């Protein structure tokens, strides 16, 4: 079963067609790298797959749920790291994640281990998020995604603003998630890093998905196992 199945999906932001007809199929345990220039629609594509936006036309099924009707069900099973971290400035790191955990019916005890995985030191956990640096904040947001153990990870520039150690942690997290059978969509400009990770690469331009420009086939296949996909 495809985790993501979009057919000619059009998504409007106001009157602007941010996605102008996307065809995309993603299978379980794939790590798909979305690349493309600024304003191409990568972030919108991720938010759309998260069930936050209504399709204007076309068909869109994510995790078996139709995005026209059952967006709440999709939202519950995905983890989205957006441009903004969606954290409350006036709550501490722990309080923020405990809120997320309780809302998602996850044991609050797991907050500690999620923060451990992202290397958020114990010293920072009782600090209000508003006082964190941009990089620390992003780590906390990533811990929030990891905490929920989503079936579909949607990461928008996960490496941005992180130090070397943080980037390594992100890569480890993504690899681990895929190994556990989760599916990952990553939008990144950090190609060197993201390429190593991805099992497939997709170009997003003009709000639509085009055949990969460089390889001509849209597949990164380090082991050379899978057949080439012609478009």
């Amino acid at each position: 079963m495809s985790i993501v199945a979009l057919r000619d999906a059009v998504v409007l932001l106001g009157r602007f067609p941010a996605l102008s007809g996307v065809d995309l199929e993603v299978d379980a345990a794939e790590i798909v790298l979305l690349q493309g220039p600024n304003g191409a629609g990568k972030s919108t594509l991720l938010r759309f797959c998260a069930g936050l936006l209504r399709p204007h036309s076309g068909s869109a099924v994510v995790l078996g749920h139709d995005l026209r009707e059952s967006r709440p069900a999709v939202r519950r099973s995905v983890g989205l790291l957006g441009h903004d971290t969606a954290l409350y400035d006036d709550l501490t790191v722990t309080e923020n994640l405990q809120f997320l955990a309780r809302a998602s019916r996850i044991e609050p005890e797991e907050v500690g281990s999620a923060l451990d995985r992202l290397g958020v030191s114990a010293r920072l956990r009782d600090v209000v998020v508003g006082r964190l640096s941009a990089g620390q904040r992003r780590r906390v947001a990533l811990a929030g995604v990891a905490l929920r153990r989503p079936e579909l990870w949607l990461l928008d520039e996960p490496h941005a603003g992180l130090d070397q150690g943080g980037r390594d942690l992100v890569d480890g997290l993504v690899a681990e998630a895929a190994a556990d059978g989760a599916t990952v969509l990553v939008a990144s400009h950090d190609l060197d890093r993201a390429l190593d990770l991805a099992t497939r690469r997709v170009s997003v331009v003009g709000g639509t998905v085009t055949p990969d420009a460089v390889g001509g086939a849209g597949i990164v296949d380090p082991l050379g196992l899978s057949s080439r996909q012609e478009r």
Partner: protein
Amino acid sequence: MYTDIWLVADKDLRIEWRSRVALSQILPFALTVLVLFGFALNANREVLTAATSGLFWLTVLFVAVVAVQRSTAIETADGARRALLLAGIEPSSVFVGKALAIAVQVLGVEILMVGGVLVFYGATVESFPLLLATCVVATLAIAASGTLLGALVAGVRARETVLPILLLPLLAPVLIAASRAFDDALGVLAVDGWAWLGLLAGFGVVNALLGTLAYGPLLEET
């Protein structure tokens, strides 16, 4: 459902308590308005006594507008609204939770304001139960309609100005009913305060019901 309501209310109150906005800004604002009414009415005891209930509740409406704006700002900053959606909490629980948090804050301000009118306007309380019941019921009604409209204007560019022009006319019956109930409780007018309380409750129920139904579709529109 109750755990979600509590979760949201607890979060909002915690944030408000941390930022101390209610304490350090809304409360002084309310007391300032009460004092300014005193100046505007030439500190005339007779006029002030007659007008106490109305001035009190008018001030509460202003406080409510500010409190709703704060409550909305919590969710619009840094895409936190999206976090609420992704967390999968039922929108109706978010609505009730946020409304309760607003109600607690406004009620706290009201209690101190009662002290204010006793001191500045020389008001006397005839019926404490009626006074308290009016505060609780009216505040819940105000919080319900305020929370609904707060979510409604969250995505509007000019939300600071749109909120009061939508909220204040809607709260006109609350102003009338709560002021009359207070008139009775303060012994200013011989009216049936408890009947007015019933009207307040009716207003609260109708708008809370609309709020629980409409909050989901509103949250969905980003």
